[in-house]
Each structure stands twice: as structure tokens, then as C-alpha cells.
């Protein structure tokens, strides 16, 4: 479970995040929807402890992620905006590296890596160097290395970016499977289709603030709009920066 309360973050004169609070529950997929530049990535970066918030609190499974960053990271699986692989290492070596950094070793390590390779159906590429992987193959490796330590919480920053139809479908199935296993899944997107197709709960963010928080139906009712698109536009104030 991920709980945030009143997060603030400024870069120079720019107020990137000003008062973000929400909770992402276990066994649910929570979507962070907002136009480009709304503060989604900054919020997520604070959640996965890459950045320190200026004020506010973050709890990952009850652990204070602002102060106990290393402990909090043990409970997180993260697919950041930047998702480069080590091209001179094989897919398996890429996953193995992150697994070791999570403290796995010996038989336990090999079992976990094998399990991830099987789970994501990447036996064919496991022994190949990452140089020249397709987008879909790259996403599989980044997911595998992010989840190899079986974290309870998943944070994904715009996971659908640059994926073709097949890869998107595979990703959605994978996230649903994670939800079925009782995990807490939180991802950001500026694509309405993606959010509505997957999310149990939607947090709409604009200009660094949470402007709405609820299920798709609740958002429709609240805005009095007949379809979800109109609901978002009415919440955000503009359709700029959103994609179908």
C-alpha cells in the first residue's frame, strides 16, 4: 500500500508538486492521470525515493519512505521514465544484476531470475545481449529486473510509452495478474484509454495538485459529464496535453 499526504516539491521557481495526497490500495490498480507537465513524474520520483519531497509524507507498506529510503525501496518495484538496459549484458545478466543489488544470492537468486524469465515468456532472449532488442523485449527485461525481488508495490511511470499493440496487451495482462496476486499497482499516464481500460481507481492530477480521486463512474457522476473524456476535460480545465 502506498500512502502520500500533502507532497510539495519545487525546482528553483517552479512549483512542480503542490499538495498531492492519495492512497493506492493493495489488490488495486491505481492510475495517475494528468496532462504532460502536471507533476506526475515528480510525484512518482518522490514515491520511489529518487527525490526528497520539500514537505509531506510518504508511507510504503507503513514504512516512512522519506526517511527510511533503503527499507522502503525493498518494498518497491519500479519502472521509471528512464528505462535503459545494459546493452553489453544479456537479458539474464541485466536481471541478475538488479537481483543481487536486492540482496539475493546463490540458489534463491537463480530461482527468482528463472521465474521472472518464465513469467514474462522471455526464454528465447534470456541469453542474448540487450543490444538491438525490440521495444517489447526491452519492456520485458525492465519489468523482470524491477520485480525480481517480488515487491508488494509496483510503480510504473508511463509504462505504455512507445509500445506497440501486442506489447501493450501483454503489459496490461501482466498488471492485471499482479493485481490478482494482491499487489498494489500504481502507474501514471496521459492516455485516457489506458487508464480507463485498467484502473480500479483514478487520481487526476493537474498543475501539481490532485483535482479528483475516485472510480471512473464516480468521476462521471461528480462532473455531470456523459462520457469519461468530457469528465476529464472538465476536471483538468482543458484538454491540452491529454491523449485519447
Amino acid at each position: 500500500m502506498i500512502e502520500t499526504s500533502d507532497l510539495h516539491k519545487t525546482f528553483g521557481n517552479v512549483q512542480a508538486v503542490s499538495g498531492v495526497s492519495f492512497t493506492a490500495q493493495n489488490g488495486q490498480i491505481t492510475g495517475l492521470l494528468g496532462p504532460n507537465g502536471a507533476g506526475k513524474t515528480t510525484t512518482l520520483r518522490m514515491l520511489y525515493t529518487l527525490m526528497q519531497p520539500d514537505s509531506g509524507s510518504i508511507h510504503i507498506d507503513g514504512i516512512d519512505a522519506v526517511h527510511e529510503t533503503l527499507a522502503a525501496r525493498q518494498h518497491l518495484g519500479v519502472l521509471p521514465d528512464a528505462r535503459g538496459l545494459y546493452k553489453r549484458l544479456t537479458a539474464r545478466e541485466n536481471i541478475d544484476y538488479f537481483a543481487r543489488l536486492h540482496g539475493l544470492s546463490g540458489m534463491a537468486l537463480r530461482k527468482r531470475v528463472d521465474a521472472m524469465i518464465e513469467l514474462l515468456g522471455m526464454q528465447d532472449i534470456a541469453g542474448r545481449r540487450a543490444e538491438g532488442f525490440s521495444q517489447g523485449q526491452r519492456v520485458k527485461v525492465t519489468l523482470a529486473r524491477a520485480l525480481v525481488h517480488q515487491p508488494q508495490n509496483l510503480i510504473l511511470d508511463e509504462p505504455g510509452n512507445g509500445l506497440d499493440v501486442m506489447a501493450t496487451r501483454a503489459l496490461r495482462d501482466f498488471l492485471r495478474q499482479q493485481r490478482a496476486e494482491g499487489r498494489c499497482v500504481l502507474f501514471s499516464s496521459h492516455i485516457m484509454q489506458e487508464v480507463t481500460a485498467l484502473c480500479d481507481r483514478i487520481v487526476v492530477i493537474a498543475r501539481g495538485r490532485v483535482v479528483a480521486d475516485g472510480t471512473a463512474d464516480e468521476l462521471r457522476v461528480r462532473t455531470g459529464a456523459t462520457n469519461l473524456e468530457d469528465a476529464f476535460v472538465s476536471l483538468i480545465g482543458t484538454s491540452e496535453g491529454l491523449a485519447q
Partner: protein
Amino acid sequence: MNRRFIFPPHLCAVWTVYLKEVRENLRDRRTVINALVTGPLLGPVLFGLLFSFTLQRQLADAVKPLPVPVIGAAYAPHLIHALEAQGMVVKPPPRNARAAIRAHVAQVVLVIPSDYDRAWDAGEPSGVELYYDSSRQGSHTPVTRLKRMLKTYAGLVVAQRLFVRGISPLILRPVVPEDRDLATPQSRSALMFSILPYFFVLTVFLGGMYLAIDTTAGERERQSLEPLLVNPVSRGAILSGKIAATVSFALVSLTLSIIAFSVVGRFLPVEKLDVILDLGPRFALFVLLLMLPLAVLLVTLQTIVSAFAKSYREAQTYLSILMLLPVIPSLLLSVMPLRARTWMYAVPLLGQQLGIMDLVRGETVSGVEVIACLIGSSVAALLAILLARELYASERLAVSA
């Protein structure tokens, strides 16, 4: 039995990062060629070239005949005879002395005027002209030699003339300087040897450069730094592993270079220069010892600089500038040789420079000097590492663009 009970998790992470960086970079052909082939060979090859160049010039100075085009040789047969006896070879006269110098046909042209004989008979000074271009590389030696020959001849004539008049020529020499040059063959080649330590520093630089960039600016440019930093490992541990990998490459590079030097040392005709060039195993071990803390310092500086470069290319530019820094003590010592004091050995770079020069001259480095050198450089390296860790914790670092 669980390994983590033997190693604390922090060290485990350092080791994991270290192994990964070494493995990944060993698979990069450009890095391997630069760190393990080009870098180590550069120093010895340059040194070999420099050595044979110095050798040629010194030999040229001493024994070679001095060819000089002479205009009006017929006016002064005695003079020409005397100069030829001292090693000058008369070359056919050019049409114009100035033109010959300008056209680089000759280094120096001797012109004897037609009234030479008349002045001689009258007991007046006979002027001869030396045409040369002092701004030209290589004109210095022949001009000096010719002037010395002329002076010797003039001294001889003066002695004869005084003698004829019944005066002892010794009256012209109230004070006689006598040379007692204490320069050893080694110290005479000081300039050449003072450049030697720089080659070792350069090798460390080249050996570490690719990893320093690849593990920091490169990692960020390839968008893999942010995912890496999200792992439950302190940034200090990650950085330590990266620096350790870079230091390893730099040290392997240095070791190969030292081996190459001792091989080159065997084939250099040192005896012709009458110098002792001690590049044996004792030298190799001492150099490695003195360079060890310096290598850590230099690599850490490289890592700091590259970590804050915006891109791979920018890091390369900064590092090329940083590479010029260690030339300073080499140049300084060759231009103004200062007296080595013990505290100087504690200054990083300078200490290694002095220590390696002592070794190469065949002199012994005292225990105090070795310890000063090791402690001084180690403290500097430690401070650099602490600074790097401090800087590496910055939020700005992880975020691409």
C-alpha cells in the same frame, strides 16, 4: 551457509557493482583496446622516440663534422685551415648568404670580406660575418660551434703575436676558470627523465578514462542510472563499486605500461649516452607502489568530473582538459629544477614525479620520502572519494536531461 553473514550487505553491493562494471566494459572492444593496448604502449613508444632523438642530438654535437658554406674562402687560407683542423667542412659558397639562410639551404654561412688580408697585414681587426637565423630550431649548435672555433683560432693568433713581441701570452689570462662539472650522465639527461613520470600518469588517465565516463555520464545518457539508483543500495556503495572498477582498469593499464617500459629499456642504446637507465623489477615495483594512491585520486577526479557532465561527449571534453593538469609538475621540474625537500614528496603528483625521477636516476628514495608520498596521496585520494560521495548524493545527478 549464507555469504551475507560473512560480508556486510554494503560490501556485497560494492562487489556486485564492481563485477558488473568490469564484465560489461571487458566486452567493449574500444575500452579494452584503449585501456589495455594503446594506453600502455603510448608511454614507452614516446619515450623510446624521445630517447633516440636526444641521443642523435647529443652525438651530433660532439663528433660530427660541421658543414659550413664559406663565401670568400680564398681571402683567408690560414683561417680556413685552422677551422678545418677543428672539424669544419667547407661547402661551396652560395650566391647570396642571406638568401641561403632564408631558403633553409644552410644553418650558418661564413663570409670573409675581400679586405681581410689588408686588415690582417695592418694589424687591425679583420671582420668575418656569420649569417644565421637564431629563431630557427637547430641553428644554435652550429653557430655556437663555429664561434668557438673562431675564438680558438683568434686566441692562437694573439698568443703568437705576443710571443713574437716577447710578451708571455699568460698576461692575458689573469683568471682561469676551470670546469669541474659534477653532473653525472644521469643528471645530464634530466629533461628526458623528468618526462618519464608523466607517461605513467598519462597511462593511468587513459586506462581509467573510458570507465570513468561509461559508468557515470554514459550510464545516465543510456537512461540506466535512474533504475539503478532505485535499488535498495546506498549511492555511496554504487559509486565505490564504480570507482573500484575504474581503478582496476587504470592499474592494469599502468602495470602493462611499466612492463612495456622495461622491455623498451632493454633495447635502448643507453650506453651510447653514457647514462644508466634502471627500469628493472625493483623500479617497476616501486613505481607501482608510488602510483597506487595517485591512481585512486586521479580516477576519482575523473569520475567526479564525468558524473556532472551532461553527456558522454561533454565528459570527454572535460577529461581531456583534466589530463593536461599533471603535465604541470613535469614541466615545472624540467624548466626550474628545484631542490627536493621531504614535504614535496607528500604533494600528490609532485611526490610521484620526484620519487620516480630519483629511481630512474639510480638514486635511492628514502623510507621517509616513500611514506610521505604514500600518505600524502592517500589522504588526497580519500578526500576526493568523500567529495565524490557527497556530490553523488545530489538529486540532480540521477535525472536525465
